[in-house]
Every structure is written in C-alpha cells, then in structure tokens.
C-alpha cells in the first residue's frame, strides 16, 4: 500500500536542497506534525549530503507508505561510493573522516522511527529511513 516514489539525483549542493524540499512537501502532504516534518527534513538533509560528499553522488527516493494503521514516509539514499568499512564507528557521535561534526549518521538515526543501512567497503551505501505519523 504505497504510491510510487519520486526519485531525485544527488549530484550537487543544489540537489541536496531539492531533496529537502521534496521531503518537506511530502511530509506536509501526509500530515506529519510540524516537529516530525522538521526532524525528517533534517535527517534527509544530512543523509543526502553524505550521499554527495562521501558516496560521490547517487540518488534519493521519497515515497509514502501505509502499514494499514498509520501513514508515513520512507526515503532511500543510495550511492555506489566506497561504502563504510566500520559502521559502528561511523555511527558514533562526533566521528568524521571529512572534517564535519560527525553528527549526520548518528543524528539522523535519532530523528527517525526506522533506520536501516546496508553498506560494505567497496560496495556503496544504501540507507532507508521511515517516519510514521503519530
């Protein structure tokens, strides 16, 4: 039970802005609360930037989901970059290999209801997040 997703390329700073805006639009459409919209858009911004900066670019796909009881939004971020060799380390607050704050992955995970990551050194990274309406 879900509508077809919308896929955006993530290849530039501008694309990261587009991802934020699409997520915002869909979040409003499924009537996430204002705080949950803000959390989801923030998480999406972090992950889209990682796709661009560390993954060397990729795509993001935004879809609405419905589990029969609740509606929600699912977003997939995928790249074919270097992957993440040590996931536990990458998910540690403050860990960064790029001079960032190291809060993107760990923070995004806190901001959503479901956070799933598939990655392996040399195999790219795919992260799926879901936020449900309360």
């Amino acid at each position, binding site marked *: 039970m879900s509508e077809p997703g919308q896929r955006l390329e993530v290849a530039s*700073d*501008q694309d*990261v*802005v587009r991802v*934020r*805006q699409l997520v*915002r639009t869909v979040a409003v459409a499924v009537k996430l609360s*204002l*705080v949950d*919209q*803000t*959390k989801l*858009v*923030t998480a999406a*911004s*972090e992950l889209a*930037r990682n796709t661009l900066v560390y993954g060397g670019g990729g795509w993001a796909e935004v879809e609405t989901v419905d589990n029969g009881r609740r509606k929600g939004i699912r977003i997939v971020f995928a790249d074919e970059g270097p992957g993440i060799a040590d996931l536990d380390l990458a998910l540690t*607050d403050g860990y960064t290999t790029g001079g*960032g*704050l190291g*809060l*993107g992955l*760990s*923070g*995004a995970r*806190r*901001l959503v209801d479901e956070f799933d990551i598939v990655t392996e050194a040399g195999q790219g990274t795919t992260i799926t997040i879901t936020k449900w309406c309360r």
Partner: protein
Amino acid sequence: MERVPVLKIGDILLVSIQIDMEDQVALQLQEDLADRIVATGCHGVIIDISALDIVDSFVGRTLATIASISRVLDAETVVVGMRPAVAITLVELGLSLPGIRTALNVELGMELLARHRAEEFTDLDELGDEDEADTPAAAAS
C-alpha cells in the same frame, strides 16, 4: 549562486537568512561576514534564522564558525529567531551550539549586544588605561 545579504544597521551587521542555503552559500556567507566585520569595524552581528525551517549540522557548524571568527575579530554574534521545532530537532541531532549566543528576536538580540558591549567597557575601565590601545581609532592614529 545566490548570496545572503549582509546589512549594516548602525554599528551592527544584520543577516537575515531567507533562503534554503546550498552549502556553498553558507560558506560564502561566512567569508562575507568576516570581510564586512573588518571593513566596517562593527562589534555586533545578528543572524536572523526565523525563516529557516531546518538547521542541519552543516548550517549549525557554519553558525558556530561565524561566531568564532567574529569573536577573533572583536565582534559578538547573536543568532535570533530560531523556531521551536528547529530547536527541538537540533538538540536531538546532538547539536547544542555551544559558544553561540541566542535571543528570541532581532530586538532582544540588539539589547543583548548592547549589554555585552557595555560590560566589556566596564571590564576595560577596571584594567586602567589599556583600553585606549584597544580601539581601532587609537591604533590607527
């Protein structure tokens, strides 16, 4: 690339971020502000983020960096107008923005800067005559 305007109002630089900034735009703002602080000799910077519907770790770090750079250039930065949902999200993201002064709106931000400036002068007076060497005008003459 769009650019965020920096306005000089009295002895304060006011930046009102009205667009969803690309990362490069945020970095440009950081540079522009440093240049304007030096060019104008302003001692206060107010950054109004009331139009921003999110602040992620990149923008958060940019704000913190602006505050640090300003301080080195003898200017104090106040971030004003953060929306409640943004504040809640920032804290959960893990970003507490240490070292950044905040106020609820531009007016309160200006009051905060004025008070800060007044306190600084009191401190300098207590140090004696050294304060004269601290002002750009005295150093230039």
